């Protein structure tokens, strides 16, 4: 038993060393280049993190992504020089941010371009698809995000849990198919989260991004979930409620990222929170409830416990929507999807071990293979509804 955990820890050493090496290379800067020649001049581009629209005003939050200092000298809106003030320092040190405030009578729903020019004359341009007023933090907004989070997160999972009575009647073979279905579902979420994470880190400034960030997130959560699984199952294979909880956590971490995405996209006017989208998310997430219910099909659980599982898996959507809606958190976004991927993959492993041990015919039975593929297919098909 100890040997098995030790092996997993050792397997992580290369991953940690990789993250360490990436860190060293990133911080060493240009000293290596100086040995072989002259460095080109700094790119002097800003990282335009957030553009907010308020009545008669545009607020542009910029960050200096490069080692050299960067000075805000000129601001354009739609290719016209505009007066502006800077909330924060005008000359930005490495990875420092400031907010540029531009009095501007912008036109609702029109595309708009903002440009920030450095003292060396380099202009960084960001195009906004449609100018819409940025919602400010309010009790009403908080409640709104909570309701949307409940609708797309908690409610469908709770509905999915209502498959439990049906599952209780299922044969062992069919149950193993549903368990494999859960694994397929989680594998789908894991791959999706990993892809999101890589995409997000590639948009980060070099000092904050890098594949190391993704690896770190994946490793961190995989390790954490492994430890948790060990504790919940007393060191053995997680079954019953313990496995259901693990599945719920894996889904919950993913749903946090989903909430983050909904909040952030809506806040910057890049997402229409229409009824169709909300409905799509609901249908998509119902299957997650099925995934949580299957491990407890042969275990006695109270309604309160079931409600708790639904909250663990669904409530993070609300938290994510709040954070995404009211803050700009590009690093958090990349890291969180990496964490979600790691957690999902760990639970796939956990469920796989369960199926291998308990299912008639093990992992290679038609039920297991068919269930796994069905899980992936179900997520893919219902995912189209949320697109």
């Amino acid at each position: 038993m100890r040997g098995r955990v030790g092996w997993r820890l050792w397997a992580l050493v290369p991953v940690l060393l990789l993250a360490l090496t990436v860190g060293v290379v990133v911080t060493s800067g240009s000293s290596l280049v100086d040995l072989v020649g002259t460095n080109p001049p700094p790119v002097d581009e800003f990282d335009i993190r957030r553009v907010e629209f308020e009545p008669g005003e545009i607020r542009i939050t910029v960050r200096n992504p490069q080692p050299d200092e960067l000075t805000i000298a000129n601001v354009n809106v739609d290719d016209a020089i505009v007066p502006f003030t800077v909330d924060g320092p005008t000359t930005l040190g490495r990875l420092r941010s400031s907010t540029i405030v531009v009095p501007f009578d912008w036109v609702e729903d029109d595309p708009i371009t903002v440009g920030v020019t450095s003292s060396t004359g380099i202009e960084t341009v960001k195009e906004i698809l449609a100018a819409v007023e940025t919602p400010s933090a309010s009790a009403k907004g908080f409640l709104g995000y909570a309701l949307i989070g409940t609708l797309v997160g908690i409610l469908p999972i709770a509905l999915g849990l209502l498959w439990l009575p049906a599952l209780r009647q299922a044969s062992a073979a069919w149950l193993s198919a549903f368990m494999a279905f859960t694994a397929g579902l989680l594998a789908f979420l894991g791959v999706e989260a990993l892809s999101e994470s890589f995409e997000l880190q590639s948009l980060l400034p070099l000092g904050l991004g890098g594949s190391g960030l993704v690896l770190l997130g994946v490793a961190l959560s995989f390790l954490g979930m492994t430890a948790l699984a060990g504790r919940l199952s007393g060191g053995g294979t997680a079954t019953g409620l313990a496995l259901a909880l693990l599945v719920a956590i894996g889904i919950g971490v993913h749903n946090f990222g989903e909430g983050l995405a909904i909040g952030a996209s809506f806040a910057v006017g890049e997402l229409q929170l229409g009824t169709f989208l909300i409905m799509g998310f609901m249908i998509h997430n119902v299957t997650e409830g099925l995934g949580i219910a299957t491990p407890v099909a042969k275990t006695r659980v109270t309604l309160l416990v079931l409600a708790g599982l639904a909250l663990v898996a669904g409530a993070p959507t609300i938290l994510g929507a709040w954070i995404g809606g009211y803050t700009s958190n590009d690093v958090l976004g990349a890291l969180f999807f990496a964490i979600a991927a790691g957690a999902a993959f760990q639970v796939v492993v956990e469920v796989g071990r369960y199926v291998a041990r308990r299912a008639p015919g093990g992992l290679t039975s038609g039920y297991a293979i068919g269930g796994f593929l069905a899980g992936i297919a179900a997520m893919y098909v219902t995912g189209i509804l949320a697109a």
Partner: protein
Amino acid sequence: MPKTRLTRRKLLAAAAPLAAAPLVGKLALDGQAAAGGHDHSAHSHTREPASHLQGTMGHAAMVGDEAPAVGGPNDLDALLYPPPALPYKPGRVREYTLTALDTELEVAPGVFFPAWTYNGTAPGPVVRATEGDVLRVRFRNEGSHPHTIHFHGIHPSKMDGVFEVVPSGGEFTYEFEAQPAGLHLYHCHATPLKKHIQKGLYGAFIIDPKEQRPPAQELVMVMNGFDTDGDGENNFYTVNGRSFYYARYPIRVRRSQLVRIYLANLTEFDLVNSLHLHADFFRYQPTGTGDHWEYTDTVMQCQGQRGVIEIEFGGTGLHMFHAHQSEFAELGWMGFFEVVD
């Protein structure tokens, strides 16, 4: 615009900041401090910032202190007010010294452009002669690249500034008879031509007719642009080298008194530039030659075109002028005449 619906997979990716349009290609030329040259400013006009006008025009009007322009009220006087016209005198020699320099220019507040200049400014100094004068221009190249001076006008081909490329540290004297009368130009003709012009090597060249033009308050306006990020498009447009300068410091002129403007276009990259005057009309003589005068409030010039504007303002107050390409106007090519009694 069409509403885009984002897929579940693209959701967060879209929310994250889009990669900014990469605009690289900045030339790392350490600018040298601007060196002297002749001071041709004849007028000692004092112009004040139009701060007393503030609040009368709304926030976005870009006038007075609202206008983001570099420097103090009289910084560009040497470029705006040409040296006086001299009466015709056969055989007279007019001497100028032009020095090519690498100069870091502040073209808009806090925005520095690694320019190449004649005598430290872009446009360079106004060169002026009377028809029949012998013009002797001593050219010294203290810049880091080979340069020339190519004058528009009639002169021997070996004085054309095309074949005798002056290397860095070199020197050449151009000497020819000034003709014909009109408004002309000079600019560097070393290759790559686009680069040498875009970097700032140009200026106005006035040849006064033997029979003098009527006395007037004379102004020189050279329209240009600066591509500060090297993407082949101008980021700032100006007259005489600083964006919004005459919006911050309006040019004061007298009502009913003849004002003569020597207007030239040396904007690189864009096909044309233009001048539009508000609230009045002027007479325009293309190239400053011939008898044809157009009566208008808007003139258009391609690169290298130029002409002479004459006007007696009929009313007092602020008269806006700007390129009638709105984009150029909002990127710095806008100013005011303040007409006073």
